[in-house]
């Protein structure tokens, strides 16, 4: 089980409390598809992904980004059992979606950058530490059931 200090929990909760899940989720997913274009391989049915502008404005990207970040919220609510929380999703990503777990790490790092750009100096080094740890733990949990 991952150990979270009281400070880490507080930092995670306080940032999460201010996050607009729809906006941040859309932005994080869009950036994933823009910065690492090979990730578009999972979204061939999303329509126009031909340019950053197209990706950012794409309603399917926005909707899916919101879905992904909403799910991330489950981790925030269940810091003491992230493994259990993502058990089924892990199986899904392996067996049905066939997503290389490397993508979880890419998205996690991008999410941290999105938070930094939104919160500026309020996204302190201590915040970054807690969130880098969280995205790493989530990525690990999502990869856990792969076989």
């Amino acid at each position: 089980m991952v150990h979270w200090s009281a400070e880490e929990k507080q930092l995670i909760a306080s940032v999460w409390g201010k996050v607009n899940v729809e906006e941040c989720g859309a932005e994080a997913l869009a950036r994933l598809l823009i910065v690492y274009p090979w990730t578009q391989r999972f979204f061939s049915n999303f329509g126009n992904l031909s340019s950053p502008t197209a990706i950012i404005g794409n309603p399917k990207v926005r909707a899916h980004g919101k879905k992904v970040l909403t799910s991330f919220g489950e981790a925030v609510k269940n810091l003491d059992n992230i493994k259990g929380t993502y058990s089924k999703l892990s199986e899904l990503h392996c067996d049905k979606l066939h997503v290389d777990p490397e993508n979880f790490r890419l998205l996690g790092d991008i999410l941290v950058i999105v938070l930094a750009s939104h919160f500026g100096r309020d996204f302190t080094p201590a915040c970054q530490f807690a969130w880098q740890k969280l995205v790493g733990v989530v990525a690990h949990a999502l990869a856990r059931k792969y076989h």
Partner: protein
Amino acid sequence: MLTAEDKKLVQQVWGKVAGCGEEVGAETLLRMFYAYPQTKTYFPHFDLSPGSDQIRGHGKKVVAALGNAIKNLDNLSQALSELSNLHAYNLRVDPVNFKAGGGRGWGMGTGMGLLSQCLQVVLAVHLGKDYTPEVHSAVDKFMSAVAAVLAEKYR
């Protein structure tokens, strides 16, 4: 591969933080030491507390080197040749720390090296919305290119 547009974006973004280069450097290192404590193992001889003169000095060096690379985007290998030697033969910093593919442990981001991730966080903090997806992409590609050159001679 850095396109002409990428190069332009990198140069523009660097121009925006040129005035506070020293601060950017120091903050990048501070965040790196905080978020990825294993990176401190390369600086046992440093005072790593916030505000440390050594961190400021070293951050300034790193930023200057990146600035030089940005002035020579068409020939990164040559511009970074000495640093490449230094990293390969003297410093021998494990490339995971700066190269794409960096950071295990908590299964940390491997899309970016640890230094690259922290530099980008600092740029995002400073620039907010101006750290657009296009700029983000260009900087990420640039840092990957720098990392590749620095790790070139390792073996």
